[in-house]
């Protein structure tokens, strides 16, 4: 029974399972017949068979993907395991510049730049499964394109997708932008960007320099940051006008710096537009006008100096010419007064009158010498000097000269640079400046004289007419006197220009300073304001030579008389006669010639020895030097003494006598002439 009942139970379970499977089968059939099924598995293998609806749906999906693939703006390519292209979209064909047929089957490595390690990149891509970055595509036509790419491996088994974007134009645009930005940044002008509301959006280095605010502090702030309060409304209206299409010409205005100080600027405002032409902001560039004003003022100053220099040149030429004629006349006056005085007995009633003439002659000689100094036609005996030594050596003399109310301060370090100048003339310069300073301090004050090495650089030379940049030694003479205004400063070096009361000054002191300094290739500048004292700065070019020792004055000859024969060549009749008279009265035998031709003739005809040729230098037709050169072959033993009132000549260059030449400066005075003649004959 038990087995029967268990059999029945087994059968019942079998029936239940069969029912279940039947129900399942019915359910499947129902689903199939009602069209609720997409796919049916087959026993043929692992791929299910898709029913019609599902197939269509898949085809639709494929069409969709195809459209997306081909319609994409980015280039897309599918490559196989070895990197050969098996699919490419339209954008890819355009990027490569190839038809699809020609692109497919090519390898990625064919389009890389030389040096690109394809093997390494490809294996790294395959192992990572993806890769992105930049790539330079070399097209078959040789053109290079910059690409951003992203690659995904095995989008389908054995197929690898690359999406590539051409960023060449973007990159170029970025380069242009960065170049422009660099230009803006390096501009000397302050350049900034503003929003329509006047908020600062960019701020270059020039802006930081001009206004003092760094970009971090300025960007994001209102432009009012740098505009004085009272000008803000005006600036806002400029922006409104530009917004309404008006072109606003550059204008001058003021800005305020971080430190609160004002700066004058010239502003250019332009609209910034977007690609559609809409104004989206403003660019403002500001140029510092103080710089331009300073440059203009400097230019004007240099022009003034140039005009001044030209004027001084002209006056100098005039003064030099006058001095030359004066010297000849003074030679006559001084010679004859001297001769007359020799003849007169000590008690002669006329003696005092003649002495008065002689005194006037000496004063005129002095004036003429100063005129020559001013016109830079003075005889110089330049030596290598230590200026501090010269100035310190004058201290005693200066203290004697100054009134008790004037305090003297000498600042001169020893062993300064050396200069090439005539020590006597340098002393003259310092003395004249000291006298001038003292006169400017009638109630007393302080006189400082400083000697120092200075370097005058190109910048200094640019604003000081005639200055050659280089090392100089400066003598600065400063007083605490009344000072002077610009009009006076401009004329201070002119001869006979004086601010002193009539009779107190000759008006030649500073003119002499000017001439001496210029003749020594130096410079002199004056700095002064009324009531603020005056500083004269004298610059002499530094030289690299050892100091020459002061030459001793020649010993005084024992006698002024002689019996030698002298050939006297002088075109000025009166001067010649005066000289002859002086010489003859002192025992000499004089042969007279009034030009070179006569001198030659005499030399040929005169049989005895001629001991000395005494010749004027500047003569018409044949100069004194030429005369000497013609006579020397005939009379090699004859000594030569040149006389001239004019230094610029065939034997003197810039006031410096050629070596080994004896020279006598006009005007001739009997004493000087006789001494010099004796000196040359005995030498």
């Amino acid at each position, binding site marked *: 029974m038990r087995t029967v009942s268990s059999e029945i139970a087994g059968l019942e379970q079998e029936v239940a399972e069969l029912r279940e499977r039947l129900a*399942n089968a019915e*359910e*499947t059939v*129902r*689903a*199939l017949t*009602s*069209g*609720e*099924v*997409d*796919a*049916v*598995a087959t026993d043929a*293998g*692992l*791929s*299910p068979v*898709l*029913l019609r*609806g*599902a197939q269509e*749906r*898949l085809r639709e*999906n494929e069409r969709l993907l195809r459209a997306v693939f081909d319609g994409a703006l980015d280039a897309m390519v599918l490559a196989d395991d070895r990197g050969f292209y098996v699919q490419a979209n339209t954008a890819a064909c355009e990027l490569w510049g190839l038809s699809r047929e020609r692109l497919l089957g090519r390898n990625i490595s064919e389009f890389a730049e030389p040096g690109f390690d394809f093997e390494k990149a490809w294996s790294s891509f395959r192992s990572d499964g993806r890769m992105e970055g930049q790539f330079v595509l070399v097209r078959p036509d040789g053109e290079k394109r910059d690409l951003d790419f992203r690659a995904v491996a095995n989008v389908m088994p054995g197929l690898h997708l690359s999406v590539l974007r051409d960023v060449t134009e973007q990159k170029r645009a970025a380069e242009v932008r960065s170049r422009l930005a660099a230009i803006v940044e390096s501009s000397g002008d302050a350049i900034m960007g503003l929003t329509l509301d006047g908020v600062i959006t960019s701020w270059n280095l020039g802006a930081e320099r001009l206004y003092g605010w760094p970009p971090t502090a300025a960007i994001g702030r209102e432009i009012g940051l740098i505009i004085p309060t009272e000008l803000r409304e005006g600036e806002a209206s400029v922006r409104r006008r530009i917004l309404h299409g008006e072109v606003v010409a550059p204008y001058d205005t003021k800005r305020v710096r971080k430190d609160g100080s004002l700066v004058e600027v010239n502003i250019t405002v332009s609209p910034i537009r977007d690609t559609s032409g809409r104004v989206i902001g403003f660019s403002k560039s500001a140029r510092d006008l103080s710089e331009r004003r300073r440059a203009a003022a400097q230019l004007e100053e240099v022009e003034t100096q140039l005009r001044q220099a030209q004027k001084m040149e002209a006056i100098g030429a005039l003064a030099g010419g006058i001095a030359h004629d004066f010297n000849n006349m003074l030679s006559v006056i001084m010679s004859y007064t001297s001769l007359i005085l020799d003849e007169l007995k000590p008690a002669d009633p006329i003696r005092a009158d003649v002495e008065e003439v002689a005194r006037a002659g000496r004063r005129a000689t002095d004036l003429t010498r100063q005129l020559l100094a001013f016109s830079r036609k003075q005889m110089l005996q330049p030596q290598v000097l230590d200026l501090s030594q010269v100035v310190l050596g004058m201290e005693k003399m200066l203290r004697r000269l100054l009134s008790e109310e004037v305090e003297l301060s000498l600042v001169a370090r020893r062993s300064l640079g050396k200069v090439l100048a005539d020590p006597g003339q340098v002393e003259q310069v310092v003395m004249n400046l000291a006298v001038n300073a003292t006169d400017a301090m009638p109630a007393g004050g302080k006189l400082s004289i400083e000697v120092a090495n200075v370097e005058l650089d190109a910048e200094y030379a640019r604003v000081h007419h005639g200055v050659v940049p280089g090392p100089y030694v400066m003598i600065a003479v400063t007083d605490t006197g009344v000072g002077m205004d610009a009009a006076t400063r401009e004329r201070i070096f002119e001869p006979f220009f004086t601010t002193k009361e009539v009779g107190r000054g000759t008006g030649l002191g500073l003119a002499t300073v000017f001439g001496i300094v210029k003749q020594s290739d130096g410079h002199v500048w004056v700095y002064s304001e009324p009531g603020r004292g005056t500083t004269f700065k004298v610059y002499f070019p530094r030289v690299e030579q050892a100091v020459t020792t002061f030459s001793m004055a020649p010993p005084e000859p024992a006698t002024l008389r002689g019996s030698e024969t002298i050939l006297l060549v002088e075109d000025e009749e009166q001067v010649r006669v005066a000289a002859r008279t002086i010489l003859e009265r002192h025992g000499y035998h004089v042969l007279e010639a009034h030009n070179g031709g006569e001198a030659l003739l005499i030399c040929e005809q005169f049989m005895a020895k001629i001991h000395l040729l005494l010749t004027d230098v500047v003569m018409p037709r044949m100069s004194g030097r030429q005369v000497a050169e013609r006579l020397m072959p005939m009379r090699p033993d004859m000594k030569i003494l040149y006389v001239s009132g004019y230094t610029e000549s065939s034997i003197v260059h810039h006031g410096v006598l050629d070596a080994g030449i004896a020279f006598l400066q006009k005007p001739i005075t009997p004493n000087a002439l006789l001494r010099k003649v004796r000196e040359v004959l005995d030498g």
Partner: protein
Amino acid sequence: MKAAQAAPRNGALRLQLYVAGESPNSIAAIRHLRALLSGYPGVKVELELVDVLKHPERAMREGVLVTPTMVKLSPAPRRRVVGNLKDPEVLVSVLGLSDAHRE
């Protein structure tokens, strides 16, 4: 039926849904199943989607012959529903859901 009703309360309802890619009935089945389950927030469901186009071997193993087919793995008994699951009553009955699961 008692055990079936009690099961969802104790453990998760584990389901597999066999589909063929994005075929229309497969998509519909997913939509219908999700819509129904959203009405029973109290039920914890683990649903696995099996694409037979990608994994045909899994369909063979499970004996799934057609798609879409939903298989209830647990709680026991194992049940399956073929078709696009458009009949919520059948689903409620097969999954053993009750009003108690609606909160």
